């Protein structure tokens, strides 16, 4: 049967074009790869090649014709043994049904999880370990190291890599002692090459290992962010669930002290933006331990945001053989009735301090630590806001597109009728981090700002 040669689409957006020039004439024999015509689109003039072999039986669209719609028959190709007589009535209409199958108006996208039934919201907060569990004081630094060591003992495919993690014992001593116990095969000093070793670790995860990648600080992870997002976070989806990157990217995040603009950024909102990643930002040592162990076991790429100032802080940590904390479960640090303070990571320090001072003034603040930013425990926040009717969020990151912004929107959508005042977001200032001590202090969120915000929402 004669084959119709159709006007081709030569770019992702082409709908019609000009048949600029025929390079063949009726009766010519063509084989696959021969140039049939030149076609002009809005982008360029391109050559159009034959796919099948045969003889040009008839040219249907004359050269110079403008506005030829994609899929319009432009010529007829005869196969071996066919003649022009075999060309029957050639319909000028494009073979629309099949060709368009992929282009149907996309039906309304599947519904996003619906926002509904605010009254049914229930707090998910629950104790992380049984009452009466033996506790001991530990720094966040020690808790993180113990979490890694325990998981490395349990699974030989878990390994740590990063700058100065082995012989130097960690730039912030978080990996102290790991080299001695696990050796250089599993505690790997890398060159200063964030983009490269992040990508290498993604490949190692594809290849069956469970890497823990330490960034000396998350500021340096901007060199590697393409590998974190485009390679680690998206592969499970792009492969239709065939393969993914079970791994942890961890290290200090946010401002330390007097290290200036390039070493002081909080990336919580950046990573929380990305589907495919899980994002953890602990405050206490117990949470650091339980959540890091959970992160190492998680089959997805996990961003684990630590804080240099918190490394040396001591907290009570449960003495348990195997202590993990599930993601997506906030912790209520302090119950209260007048206002809900929501924070995470080092922001908790301001929230708790403010709550103490507010208590002296007779204002009862409930303080919630989100602990994980993807997934976020919305229900615990909403249940609290429905009780207190007021909310202030606290974080060190920049204000535009902050976690607080996102929480405000969620509260507005799901608990609007419960609010007695607009939600206020306390954040770092909208400026690069300055070096001078006094300026730096003001660039960060302060306890006084949190107190002022609470007074504003409680109309005191």
């Amino acid at each position, binding site marked *: 049967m004669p084959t119709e040669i159709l006007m081709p689409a030569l770019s992702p957006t082409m709908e019609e074009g000009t048949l600029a020039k025929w390079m063949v004439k009726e009766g010519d024999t063509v084989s696959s790869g021969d140039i049939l015509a030149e076609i002009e689109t809005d982008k360029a003039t391109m050559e159009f090649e034959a796919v099948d072999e045969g003889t040009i039986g008839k040219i249907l669209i004359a050269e110079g014709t403008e506005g030829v719609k994609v899929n319009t028959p432009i010529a007829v190709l005869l196969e071996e043994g066919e003649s022009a007589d075999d060309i029957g009535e050639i319909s000028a209409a494009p073979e629309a049904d099949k*060709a368009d199958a992929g282009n149907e108006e996309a039906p309304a996208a599947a519904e996003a999880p619906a926002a509904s039934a605010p009254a049914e919201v229930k707090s998910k907060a629950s104790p992380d370990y049984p009452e009466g569990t033996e506790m001991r004081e530990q720094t966040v630094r020690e808790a993180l190291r113990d979490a890694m060591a325990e998981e490395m003992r349990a699974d030989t495919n878990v390994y740590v890599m990063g700058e100065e993690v082995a012989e130097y014992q960690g730039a912030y001593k978080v990996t102290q002692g790991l080299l001695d116990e696990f050796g250089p095969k599993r505690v790997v000093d890398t060159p200063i090459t964030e983009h*490269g070793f992040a990508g290498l670790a*993604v490949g190692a995860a*594809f290849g069956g290992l469970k890497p823990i990648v330490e960034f000396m600080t998350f500021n340096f992870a901007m060199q590697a962010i393409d590998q974190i997002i485009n390679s680690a976070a998206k592969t499970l989806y792009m492969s239709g669930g065939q393969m993914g990157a079970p791994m942890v990217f961890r290290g200090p995040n946010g401002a330390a002290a007097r290290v200036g603009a390039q070493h002081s950024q909080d990336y919580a909102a950046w990573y929380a933006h990305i589907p495919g990643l899980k994002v953890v930002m602990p405050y206490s040592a117990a949470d650091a331990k339980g959540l890091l162990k959970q992160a190492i076991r998680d089959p*997805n790429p996990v961003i684990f945001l630590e804080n240099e100032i918190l490394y040396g802080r001591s907290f009570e940590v449960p003495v348990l053989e195997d202590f993990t904390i599930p993601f997506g479960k906030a912790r209520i640090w302090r119950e209260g009735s007048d206002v809900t303070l929501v924070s995470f990571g080092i922001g908790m320090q301001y929230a708790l301090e403010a709550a103490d001072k507010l208590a002296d003034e007779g204002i009862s603040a409930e303080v919630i630590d989100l602990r994980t930013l993807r997934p976020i425990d919305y229900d615990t926040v909403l249940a609290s806001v429905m009780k207190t009717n007021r909310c202030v969020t606290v974080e060190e990151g920049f204000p535009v597109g902050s976690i607080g912004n996102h929480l405000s929107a969620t509260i507005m959508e799901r608990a609007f009728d419960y609010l007695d005042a607009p939600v206020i977001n306390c954040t770092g200032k909208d400026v690069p981090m300055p070096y001078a001590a006094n300026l730096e202090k003001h660039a960060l969120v302060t306890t006084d700002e949190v107190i002022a915000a609470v007074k504003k929402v409680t109309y005191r």
Partner: protein
Amino acid sequence: MATRKSAAKPNVSADELKKYYHDMLLIRRFEEKAGQLYGMGLIGGFCHLYIGQEAVVVGLEAAAEEGDKRVTSYRDHGHMLACGMDPNGVMAELTGREGGYSKGKGGSMHMFSKEKHFYGGHGIVGAQVPIGTGLAFADKYLENDRVSFAYFGDGAANQGQVYESFNMAAIWKLPVIFVIENNQYAMGTAQKRSTSSAEIYKRGEPFGIPGQLVDGMDVLAVKEAGEKAVAHCRSGEGPYILEVKTYRYRGHSMSDPAKYRTREEVQNMREKHDPIENIRQMLVDGKHASEEDLKEIDKTIKDIVNKSADFAKESPEPALEELWTDIYAEEIPQNNA
């Protein structure tokens, strides 16, 4: 006609030659069909055809063993067919259908096969190079004696992460073969306009990585070089670089104005250096195959390709629920199965 170098190689059986002919022709016909489906609007977005470069993957796959891994850029259809992935699944992914390797969620540039140890299909130029190095890191860690092929182009050879990868592969002696598919144009930029030294394979020298220049239009030369590289890696001596000189007949993607090179240049490569014609000639000259035999192969391939196109048209679009699946894994994927 120019003398064909590989005609002199005696140590290849007729069956092997026929297999290479078959595998290269399958890629070419598949790509021509993909181009046609793109023209019909059945394939959308970007679509980078491998026509002209077939000898590179077919030669290197001939040097690989079961369990060896490969990862490449967005010009990936040839690699997938050469490592044994199902043409139906590849074509259906190109049309964005449920029967595609990624259930229609990846597209031309993002396809994977755990079963065939094909780790993508990457759309970010050069990003696959550290990933391939990491696959080799895992293999060395797991002591499984496997080798990884990290393919990238002459364009990607100017990305910094390539040299970060060279460095780490060298210091840790990782079993990775860096395959530079030099088709001489980074999109529309000729190598001499983008790359300070003509000999990319020598760029491993400062890292202590041996490199070799290979005629990528000669499948037997590619296979021989591949075997040498594989032996080097498998013996624990660390990485190896192959710069395989090849040529892309078609545009960078589908909308390519072709203003950056002359038609004569392309015609010259097609007529005098075509890798498939080269093998065809060897088969006929050496009386390893009759015209009839070759016609039979052509017909078999035409059938495979037509079937893949039919499958890709008939496979339904993914269900809307697929929008929300595969974002997070519930359990650790058995990546190294």
